[in-house]
């Protein structure tokens, strides 16, 4: 567990660690150019969507609208400037403006209509299906 910055601990490398480092979120790499990336397609796709307005619907039916701040290999999502879709039903969320959503509880991620280049995604999927 991350406790004190001065204690250098190396935890076991997870077998699912990405071949890309998370620090490369700054690089605007097109997901279509990443070939032979097994299990990384949606991670790369969401990285390209950082900064866009999305609505995340969770498995507990809570829907949150916000700006996609970041995403990681588990598809955990960090949203900024969040507003809950049905605010009266969730009064406890009133003062929450930024949140971290665990990837395992996401049901849908609703994207802007121009957020998807369907052909590019199509090609990347076919390439991954072939190569992966």
């Amino acid at each position, binding site marked *: *567990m*991350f*406790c004190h*910055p001065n204690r*250098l601990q*190396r*935890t076991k490398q*997870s077998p699912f660690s990405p071949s890309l480092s*998370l*620090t490369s*979120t*700054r690089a605007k790499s097109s997901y279509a150019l990443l070939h032979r990336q097994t299990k990384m397609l949606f991670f790369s796709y969401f990285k390209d969507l950082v900064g866009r307005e999305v609505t995340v619907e*969770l*498995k*507990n039916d*809570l829907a*949150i609208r916000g700006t996609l*701040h*970041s*995403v*990681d290999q588990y598809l*955990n*999502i*960090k949203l900024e400037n*969040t507003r809950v879709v049905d605010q009266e039903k969730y*009064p*406890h*969320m*009133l*003062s*929450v*403006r*930024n*949140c*971290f*959503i*665990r990837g*395992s*509880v996401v049901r849908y991620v609703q994207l802007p209509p121009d957020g998807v280049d369907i052909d590019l995604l199509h090609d990347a999927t076919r390439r991954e299906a072939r190569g992966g």
Partner: protein
Amino acid sequence: MSWASPEDILLSTSLATYLDKKILVLLRDGRKLLGLLRSFDQFANVVLEGACDRTIVGDLYCDIPLGLYVIRGENVVLIGELDLEKEELPPHMTRVSTAEIKRAQKAEGDATALKGSMRKRMEFLDFD
């Protein structure tokens, strides 16, 4: 897991930005825990200091203090940073005691059960 630099943390999905801040943790069982984030790891296991369980029934709410909590990541739905300048709850909500909120919860549970049993009785009549 290597240590991320300060710039990387600002751009990544790290919970480090919430350290020592007051956060709201939503759990899979519907509980809402508030407290100061003291520690976390890659599974979203979380250590919450001064945790309290906020129970909300209609317009009533109650904060039950819990102390120091370690939450297993698989139960975490959402971790929200509470904006201290904003009101945590709408103004029309009133704070009540633990006994009262338990009574309100029971009343709500009974009402739902009654609705369920009434619906079953109506369905038996089979209106077509």
